[in-house]
């Protein structure tokens, strides 16, 4: 899958590039609105990571231009430090698939990209299979054989996030932010995640052994497959 990063901040673009390349994506980089326009015009991308504040214009214009092109299905994730609620609403209204406020964590970005992929290619592989557990993002369910495991909304979110970022240590902070999402609610404390994980583990272990669901001491959790 190929990704276009439209970002004027070179340092950040390089880090995202490195991370996504490591995850198997093909990454291109545009630093100005003009060069991004050229690239979008010539190539199809699976993902366009779009910064709104570009040196020669507004990222929204690129979004409009893209939506004006025919037969294009590039997923757009807006990345911005503006963080205004209006920007988020406007971005999504104009056809962006998701919105991430800077600073974001790369694992969060990856989880969002996976979620978009699964949403778009609904017919192909909807479920993620983990040791006999089937995670369905659309229905937000986890099934064992044909039995539905009764998870709360937050427990599902945590499990899903860990699954999407499998084999990587996910810190409590990162998880908290993913589950609680909204930047406005900064008061949530990370230890709170432990309660959910404890309950989640208890529920999962009723079906299968969960030695692959590791606690990384003083940091967070990892699903090891």
């Amino acid at each position, binding site marked *: 899958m190929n990704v276009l990063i439209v970002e004027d*901040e070179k*340092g*950040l673009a390089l*880090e*995202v590039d*490195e*991370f996504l390349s*490591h995850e198997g994506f093909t990454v291109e980089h545009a630093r100005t609105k003009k060069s991004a326009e050229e690239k979008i015009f010539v190539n199809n991308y699976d993902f366009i990571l779009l910064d709104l504040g570009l040196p020669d214009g507004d990222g929204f214009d690129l979004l409009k231009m893209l939506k004006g092109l025919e037969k294009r299905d590039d997923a757009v994730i807006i990345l911005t*430090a*503006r*963080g*205004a*609620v*209006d920007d988020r609403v406007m971005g999504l209204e104009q056809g962006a698939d998701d919105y991430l406020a*800077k*600073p*974001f*964590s*790369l*694992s969060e970005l990856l989880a969002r990209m996976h979620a978009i992929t699964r949403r778009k290619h609904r017919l192909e592989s909807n479920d993620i299979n983990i040791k006999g557990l089937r995670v369905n993002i659309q229905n937000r369910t986890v099934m064992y054989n044909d039995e539905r495991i009764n998870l*709360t909304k*937050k427990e599902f979110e945590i499990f899903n996030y860990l699954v999407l970022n499998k084999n*990587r*240590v996910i*810190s409590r*902070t*990162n998880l908290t*932010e993913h589950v609680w999402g*909204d*930047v*406005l*609610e*900064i*008061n*949530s*404390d*990370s*230890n*709170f995640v432990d*309660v*959910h994980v404890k*309950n989640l583990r208890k529920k999962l272990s009723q079906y299968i052994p969960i030695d692959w669901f590791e606690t990384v001491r*003083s*940091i*967070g959790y990892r699903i090891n497959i």
Partner: protein
Amino acid sequence: MKLQVKLALYNTLTKVAIILFTGLLILLSIEKISYNHIEVRLEEKKEATLRSLSSREINSFLAAQKVYTDYNILKEEFITITPVKYEANTPGKVTFSTETRKVERNMETYRILSNRFNFNEHTYLLEIGETIESVEELKSIIKKFTLLVLFIALVLTLISDLVFTKFLLAPFYKIIDRKLIKVNDPMNFDYEKIQTTTQDFELLDDSISSLMKKISNLFILEKQFIANVSHELLTPISIISSRLENILLHEELSEGSENKMHASLKTLNRLKSIINSLLLISKVENNQFDKGDMVMIAGVIKEIHEELEDRIDEKHLTFTNHLKYIYSIQGNRPLMHTLLFNIINNSIKYNTTKGSITISDDLNDDIYAITIADTGIGMEQKQIDNAFNRFEKFDTDEKESYGLGLAIVKSITAFHNINIKINSVKNKGTAVKLIFDNQV
């Protein structure tokens, strides 16, 4: 005492003093002048009497060494010549006195001229009196008149002074009221000039306005500064955090370094949270949020309860929702959510295990109020006073407290014109009351 009253009283007192003084002066001078006139007349009469001593009528009295008395019908005047012990050298001195004499059953006050003189080898005392009844009468009339004038002047000046100073000071009170008392936010200051012809008040008005302009400029500058700094910090944080995440991807990392990376990420996250909170406060204070939502309070509370249920269970708290009214306010839903979330989250955070949280509301005179009460560790008065300050935090086990939660609460309540009151007893609990009394 109000300036207006003080000025009126001062004016009245000075006027009373002036009238009293002039009244007294007139009284004294009238007495003096009329006595003077009488005395001049008495002198003339004395001369006339002495000249007519040889007249037969008087002479017969004198020869018999008898007292000669004469007065007119209305007893306004009298003359007596009394023989006294012989003195060879009479001083011839004329003295005046005011005395009450009985003339034929009538008591009258007279101005009396006394003079001793020698006549035919005898000494006589001559007394000529003239009634001063008319003078006394005049004096009493003047006294009454003065008192009357005094009283009328007193009332009139008091009223006129009060009215005039009120008129004069009206712009002053207007300035105080509109430019000082009613101002609770320099951003919404009313720069319109108060109409006045008094230069001093114009100066006062201008000074307050220019001072307020300076304050609001500083205010704007501070807000811009916070917004700019926060915004410009977010990108570098983003780069560092991505870089650390990428380093963590390398498997050759030792466990120690990995832990340090994660610790650094956590610190970065803390930095990000603080910046985002400051940004949020600054945006709320800059009115960058829309107030177009109808927010149903009970609905938001229910939502927050669901979100926080796990935490409530974890601490074995009893959560009681006593909301009786379906009340909606015009405002910003995400902000109202944050507001109530922060308050309820605090009531969980600072609660004791197996404590309780009670949410209740009431509606008095169309004013809705909601109270969130807990049985937590409570606060002392000093802590309550500082609770809304930025970066103010209390002893807590929570690692993720930045001391900005209540600062956010304060800015959101101010944004929505909500009155917030904290009642707290140390080790007993805290009750936060939100009063929706200024809804437009």
